[in-house]
């Protein structure tokens, strides 16, 4: 798994590649929380286009990011979910709690909900 960050004005976009599981979800969580809590970035966007597999520990990292952003009135946005990642989020019954878009353009242009 690899995670890298792109910084735009008031926005950080994380590009995640590979599977997210117990082996690497702590690194994903740390990256999210650093931007949200320490750098106070008001909008964090997560690109999941290249994530083919995610388990409950990966979902927990996304939940941590969402909770931290809500605490700070920031936005936490996902885009590019694969079929299997969407299925796992559906299984967790958390799909509707996240702000999710098809692609980066939509994620960047979406007004706050």
């Amino acid at each position, binding site marked *: 798994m690899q995670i890298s960050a792109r910084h735009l004005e008031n926005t950080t976009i994380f590009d995640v590649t590979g599977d997210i*599981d117990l*082996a690497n979800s702590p690194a994903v969580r740390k990256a999210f929380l650093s931007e949200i809590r320490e750098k106070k970035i008001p909008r964090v966007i997560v690109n999941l286009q290249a994530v083919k597999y995610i388990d*409950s520990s990966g979902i927990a990292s996304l939940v941590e990011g969402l909770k931290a952003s809500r605490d700070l009135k920031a936005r936490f946005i996902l885009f590019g979910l694969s079929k299997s990642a969407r299925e796992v989020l559906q299984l967790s*019954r*958390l799909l509707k709690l996240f702000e999710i878009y098809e692609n980066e353009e939509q994620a960047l242009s979406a007004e706050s909900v």
Partner: protein
Amino acid sequence: MPRRQLLLRLQLLSNPLVLCGVRGVVSPLAGAIGFGEEDCHKITLALDEAITNVIRHAYGGNLGRPIVIQFHKLDGENGAKPGLEIILQDRGVEPKPDALKGLPPGELRSGGLGLHFMRQSMDAVVHTRVGSTNRLRMVKFIQ
């Protein structure tokens, strides 16, 4: 009771790095038995979550402890349903009864989803304690 045939026995050491290797084995194995793509993903997820629980809870995150996984093909003869039985054994601490109840999904909580995923993905998930061994039996039938 359907006839069962041992297909594969994996002996692992508790380490999160083994998860990707196990996923790489179980999905094609389930496909070879006759499961469709969606069920292969469900079986893979259930096993991934089961091993994750062993590493995190039974072994408290300690590395290098034994985990044994057996895969049995269930024959669909004499009215029995064909499918896959997975038996996972570890020598960690016994889970507390509350931990086996699981937590309701749909809440913004960063834990407790693994057992829910296992139960949603498989047709049977049964935990037993035999002596000092935890034994988890999971079954998925071919629809």
